[in-house]
C-alpha cells in the first residue's frame, strides 16, 4: 500500500490501543525526525495535531534534535504536516501502525512529514 492510500483504519486492534505511541515529525524527505513518546492513555483523547504541536514545542532538546527541529520549522514556513500523504485530522490512532523494537517491545508509530509545498508548473521555458 502506498503512503497516500494507507491512512485511516490501519487495523489497530483493541489491545494495541494500550501501547505507547511514538510520534516522529520528519522534515521534508529526510530519513529521521524528531521523536516523542506518549504513554498509553495519554494520547487517545487528543487530536494528532495537538500532539504534534506538543512535540514541536518541546524544550531541552539535544543538539541533534535542535537541528532537526530547525529543519522542521523551515519546512513549516508556508508548509504543512502530512501523515501518509494526508493532512493530519483526527486522532493518532487513526494513523498509527504497530511496530516493535529490536528487543521485541511493541509500540504504535505515527510518522508525520513537515512538507513545504512546491507546486511545480513553471519551467524556465514556460515562465
Amino acid at each position, binding site marked *: 500500500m502506498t503512503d497516500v492510500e494507507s491512512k485511516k483504519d490501519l487495523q489497530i486492534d483493541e489491545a494495541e490501543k494500550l501501547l505507547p505511541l*511514538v510520534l516522529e515529525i520528519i522534515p521534508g524527505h529526510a530519513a529521521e525526525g524528531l521523536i516523542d513518546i506518549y504513554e498509553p492513555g495519554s494520547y487517545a483523547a487528543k487530536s494528532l495535531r495537538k500532539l504534534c504541536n506538543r512535540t514541536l514545542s518541546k524544550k531541552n532538546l539535544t543538539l541533534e534534535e535542535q537541528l532537526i527541529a530547525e529543519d522542521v520549522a523551515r519546512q513549516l514556513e508556508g508548509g504543512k504536516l502530512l501523515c501518509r500523504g494526508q493532512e493530519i485530522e483526527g486522532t493518532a490512532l487513526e494513523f498509527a501502525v504497530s511496530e516493535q523494537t529490536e528487543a521485541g517491545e511493541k509500540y504504535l508509530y505515527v510518522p508525520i512529514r513537515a512538507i513545504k509545498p*512546491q507546486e511545480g508548473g513553471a519551467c524556465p521555458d514556460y515562465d
Partner: protein
Amino acid sequence: MWQLLNSDMEFLVESDFIYLPLLLDPEIEKEVQALFRPGKPMENSGHPESKTIIAHQDRQFVKALNIHSVLENYETINAYDYKRQRKEFLRKYQLTREVDGILLDDTLKTILFQVMPYFVRKNRGLQRKKLRDEEILDLVGEKIDIPGKYYKEAKTFRDVEPLKAILKGLENQKPIFKSPGNGLLSAHQLRDWFHEAVHAKILASEHDRLTKALQIRLQFSQAKPEHAATLLYIADTGSMEMDGFGFTRKNAYKGEYFVYKRIGEYVLKDYSARSYLFPDCRVALSTYTPFRPFVMEKYKHPFLLRHKSGQEICMKHFAPPHEFTAENAIRILEEGLTALRYGYDARRRNGYHSLERTWVYIPTIDFEDYRI
C-alpha cells in the same frame, strides 16, 4: 632508433651523446679523411665538447643522438612503451584508477558525509545522534556488500613505507638517473639503461601525485581497514545506493556526480478523486550546473513535459543556486521530490498535463495506464 637498440650493435657514448658505428664505403672514407685533415676543425660548433666523428679502438663512430633529448621526448618517441611502463609503475604502488585523487575530492566528501546522512536512517531505535565520518563509513559498510578485493587493496593502500621511501629519494634531489658514462655499450646495455632512466623520469613526473597519495594514505594508515576498503570501493565504482539515496559518477565530466533520491511508489488523484499509482524514479541533481532537479529514468508526470529520461521537473518560485553545497543539494532534491509527490493539484490541474483526459487540453501524455 628503437630498432637499433634491439639489434646486436655496439654504441659509443661520449659527453651525453650516442655515437653510431660509421659505415665504411669509399665515399664516406673520403669525407672522414677530409674531416681529419690538419687545420680542419672537427668539433661541433654548437657543442665544442662533442666531436662529430670519434675514432675508438680502430673503429669510427658518428654522432647521432643526445641522450637527454631522447629521454625528454621519450613519451612522444615511443608512446606505447612509455604508457606501458607508467602503468606498470602505477600498479606497483596502487596508484591506478586515480583513487587518491578521488578520495581527496571535496565533492565526493560533501555527498558522502553531508548530503547522504540527511536521507538515510542512521540511528537504531529512537535515539537521534549526529554521526561522525567514521561512523558513516561503518554504516555504509553494514549496508553495502563491499567485495573482498577492496579489503586486499586496502592493505596495500595503507602501507605508506614504499611511497615514503620514493618521495624521500626525490626530495633529497638525487639525480633522477645516472648517466651511462663514456665508452662502448652493447645495444642490450643501452636498452637497459634507457629502461631505468625512463622509469626514473616517470617517478619524477608523478612527484605531485605521490605527495598527495602519501598525504591521504597517512590518514588511512590510522583508519580501520574496513573504512579504507569502503572508500576504495566508492572511489573505484564511483557510485553507491543506500536507503534509496545514491550517487553515480558522470562519465563525461571528471569528478562530477549525479546525486539522487528514490521517490518510491506514490499515488496522485485526479479531479474526480480517482487514484493513479506512479512508479518509483530517481529524482536527481548534477554536481555540475545547472543545479535543477530532474528525473533520471524515462518517466511521465504532469510536471514533466515529455515521456523520456533526464527531464527537468517543472518548478514554481525555484531559484537554482549558483554553487554545489550540501545544503543546496538537499534543498534541490527535496523540492523535486515534493513537486512530484505533493505538488499536483487535481482541482487546478497545474503542470504540463492533467491526470485525466480532458476536452480542453490537447492530449499529449496519457496517465490511464497508472489508474488504480
